[in-house]
């Protein structure tokens, strides 16, 4: 299945892209999907404490346990700093 992965701010700078398309095995869990993203998108592990990165699925914060579906919109970003 195919998913879209978005990056913002510091993660977009690290990856050098704001959006990538990834192929994931059907039924992939969220925590595994994030591992895949960290492996395939160079710059994330190098530039970030990955334990501090946030992960969202279809614009909701992930708890790591969701099952990813074809066409999902994922995103990886640093701790927010709006306001």
């Amino acid at each position, binding site marked *: 299945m195919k998913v879209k992965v*978005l990056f*913002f*701010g*510091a993660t977009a*700078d690290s990856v050098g892209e704001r959006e990538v398309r990834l192929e994931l095995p059907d039924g992939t869990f969220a925590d595994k999907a994030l591992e895949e993203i960290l492996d395939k998108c160079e710059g994330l592990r190098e530039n970030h404490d990955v334990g*501090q990165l*946030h992960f*969202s699925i279809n*614009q*909701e*914060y992930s708890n790591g346990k969701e099952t990813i579906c074809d066409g999902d919109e994922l*995103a990886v*970003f*640093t*701790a*927010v*700093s*709006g*306001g």
Partner: protein
Amino acid sequence: MKFFELTSEPLDVGAIARRIVPEECGATVTLDGYVRKFTKGRETDYLVYEAYEPMALKEMEKLIDKALDKYEIAAVGIVHRLGKLDIGETSVVISVSSPHRRAAFESCEWLIKELKRTVPIWKKEVYADGEVWVEGDVSGEQ
């Protein structure tokens, strides 16, 4: 009653503060957050705000709904600006109306703390000699 928006246009604090004036209310507390010239002694040139827009709007609405549930308040508006902001320009306005002012103060302060913790918006500080994407402080104070 609620409104929540992202915009690249300059924010009009007064218009946001006065957009909802419920008849049963007597007080509106408004937070106007703007660009400080100095952060930890370093002089900021300008800021750039970026958002994961659809998710930011969803998170803003969730925060407002929680506040309306948790506090005795009648209306909340949150507007956050995106893009390049100069010193002194307003980045966020949070306005809360309530029958009695205590709840408006308390919930407005809670809302900005939570917004800084959960709403996917990021700030890049640009200095004369470099720039940095700011990573949020979990405490929400800054």
